[in-house]
């Protein structure tokens, strides 16, 4: 991609912002609008990251931004039957369900039965209703000056989901957010989410991303998460979108003392998926566990990027990312552990294992440690290989046909991540989905009742 295309892309996006700014502002609260000005100047400086940017070296994004997309500036009055959508996702999962359609929190879906004080609502609504929380947390962890996509998200931010769990509250049932993309044209979607888990709270959040149609979606999603002292947050994600979709997911996690954050990201399907995790362990004894599994074939691309910032002593972090790539799929893992000078007694581990099933699939992996403290335990390891031939022969020697033996091994490889999902029903469902995906039986709208594509 040459320089002039980059400049044109940037000026198109800025033009789009200027054209829609009035509508963006009128639909958003003060704290969302307040950050646009700085986001604009940052984006103007940074643009869409290209492969010259070390963090995006293996993910040529610009070409994905170049398509023709419409943008919705207000919630689309949807005719989608909510109950039929639930069948698309995780049935029998007893959750507090919320729906986000094309980036807008769906009104009319009641999130009932939550413990007192817990809020699950639209981000736009929350920005007006809860100014104190917004002032403290919104755009405080996602730094627009460092990444063009973060700036772009902040520039166009309007809505998404907002979750607030007050001090000492434990939510038994998981909160499930279903992000749906559904339209009759190609769509540019901006989602901005904020999760605040206050001191001593406990919560499970499940986020499912689905595209209901075969149109192209360019989604720029950003989630800021704050966990207070001793808070515990489980954050599981299932990404299942069509091959024409491009998904940028930036996750900023800010953790205080002894808080625990665990995340399992299962990338089942999508044209391009980029998941970035920026974790700041900003209090003694905090723990972060990031697990990811991606399965891709055709010409899909899945990239996981991690910046694990150990800013305080006695913190622990674990990263395990695994990928299976077939056909002409490409993947990237770019993981950095940063241990700051005062972060003594840090334990930080990182592992990235990948299996290539074809000679044309490619995986780039770049583990990276930067350590300024002297009393730490850190390790990293990365592998890119094929299915274990000895194991394959062992299985076949017991009468299991080659195709089935390969499936068993791939499934076992994937299961190391899937088995970490803590909600049993969700785990069962994802096991089934991964199984089907590996057998090539999973279409993008599997089990969906809306045959819109």
């Amino acid at each position, binding site marked *: 991609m040459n320089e002039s295309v980059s400049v044109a892309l940037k000026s198109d996006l800025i033009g789009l912002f200027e054209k829609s700014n009035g509508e963006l502002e009128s639909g958003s609260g003060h704290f969302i609008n307040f950050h646009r000005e700085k986001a604009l100047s940052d984006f103007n400086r940074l643009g869409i990251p290209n492969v010259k940017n070390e963090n995006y070296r293996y993910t040529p994004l610009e070409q994905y931004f170049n398509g023709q997309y419409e943008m919705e500036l207000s919630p689309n009055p949807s005719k989608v039957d909510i109950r039929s959508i639930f069948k698309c996702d995780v049935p029998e999962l007893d959750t507090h369900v919320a729906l986000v359609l094309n980036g807008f929190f769906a009104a009319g879906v009641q999130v009932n039965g939550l413990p007192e004080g817990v809020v699950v609502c639209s981000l736009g609504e929350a920005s007006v209703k809860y100014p104190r929380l917004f002032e403290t947390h919104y755009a405080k962890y996602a730094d627009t000056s460092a990444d063009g996509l973060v700036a772009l998200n902040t520039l166009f931010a309007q809505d998404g989901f907002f979750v607030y769990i007050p001090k000492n509250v434990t939510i038994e049932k998981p909160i499930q957010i279903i992000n749906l993309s559904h339209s009759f044209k190609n769509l540019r979607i901006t989602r901005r989410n904020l999760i605040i888990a206050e001191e001593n709270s406990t919560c499970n959040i499940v986020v499912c991303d689905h595209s209901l149609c075969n149109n192209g979606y360019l989604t720029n999603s950003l989630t800021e998460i704050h966990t207070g002292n001793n808070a515990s947050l489980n954050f599981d994600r299932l990404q299942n979108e069509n091959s024409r979709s491009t998904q940028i997911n930036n996750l900023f996690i800010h953790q205080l003392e002894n808080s625990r954050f665990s995340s399992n990201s299962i990338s089942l399907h999508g044209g391009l998926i980029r998941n970035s995790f920026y974790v700041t362990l900003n209090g003694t004894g905090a723990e972060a566990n990031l697990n990811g599994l991606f399965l891709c074939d055709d010409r899909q691309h899945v990239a996981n990027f991690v910046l694990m910032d150990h800013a305080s002593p006695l913190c622990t972090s674990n990263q395990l990312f695994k990928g299976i790539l077939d056909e002409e799929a490409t993947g990237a893992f770019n993981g950095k552990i940063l241990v700051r000078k005062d972060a003594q007694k840090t334990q930080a581990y990182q592992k990235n294992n990948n299996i290539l099933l074809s000679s044309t699939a490619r995986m780039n992996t770049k583990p990276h440690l930067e350590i300024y403290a002297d009393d730490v335990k850190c390790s990293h390891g990365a592998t890119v290989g094929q299915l274990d031939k000895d194991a394959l022969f062992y*299985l076949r020697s017991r*009468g299991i046909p080659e195709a089935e033996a390969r499936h068993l091994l791939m499934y076992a490889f994937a299961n190391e991540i899937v088995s970490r999902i803590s909600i049993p029903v969700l785990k069962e469902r994802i096991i089934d989905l991964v199984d089907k995906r590996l057998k090539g039986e999973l279409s993008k709208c599997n089990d969906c009742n809306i045959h819109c594509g």
Partner: protein
Amino acid sequence: MLQIKDLHVSIDGKEILKGINLEVKAGEVHAIMGPNGSGKSTLAAALAGRDIFEITNGSVSFLSENLLEMSPEDRARKGLFLGFQYPVEIPGVSIVNFMKTAINEHRKFKGLDPISASDFLKLMREKKDLVGLTSSLTNRSVNEGFSGGEKKKNEIFQMAMLQPTLAILDETDSGLDIDALRIVAQGVNKLRRNDNATIVITHYQRLLEHIVPDFVHVLYKGKIVKSSGRELALELEEKGYDWIKEDNE
């Protein structure tokens, strides 16, 4: 049951087996002995269908069919079983799932319906007890973190589950203490019938005290240089392999 004629096998262009002739009939136990590097494990792996070995000459007939044309899974489903010298660890695949898949593939091959859950559990329990494998092991991933003895017991357990017509046990005794050796050997003996056969590959005589062979063959430099009754094993125990080497230089 098994006829090997003038079998030549190479790996990476290097010839390991240089003309093996061997006939195994139903009800027989054959022991194949020989010094390290003589080609014992190559013979076992080539018979099981490991593709890194290239068959350059000769023929192998198993139950009157051309074994060498079959895939490893077809050989297994026809009734051939290889007990591995180094059983492979397969993290993430549970023994239960592994065995259920294998048994159902064998059944499918025979035109039978999949085994019922209760029949499978019953079979598991019965065969587990045969080799003294505990439930805490069978609930784990295949061989993952198993001790040497546990891995070998697991091989015999799988053999018991699959009830092969011809079992080839490749150095099943290596790495076993005397108690484990006895359990493994007892397991093999309990599975002996008039209509099946066993080839025991071993370096030492001691396994043959427990699994009594009908024939003993000595493999040296890729050829069977001596065949006799079980007394040959005792002779080898006493005199070592040097006299065989000297006779064949």
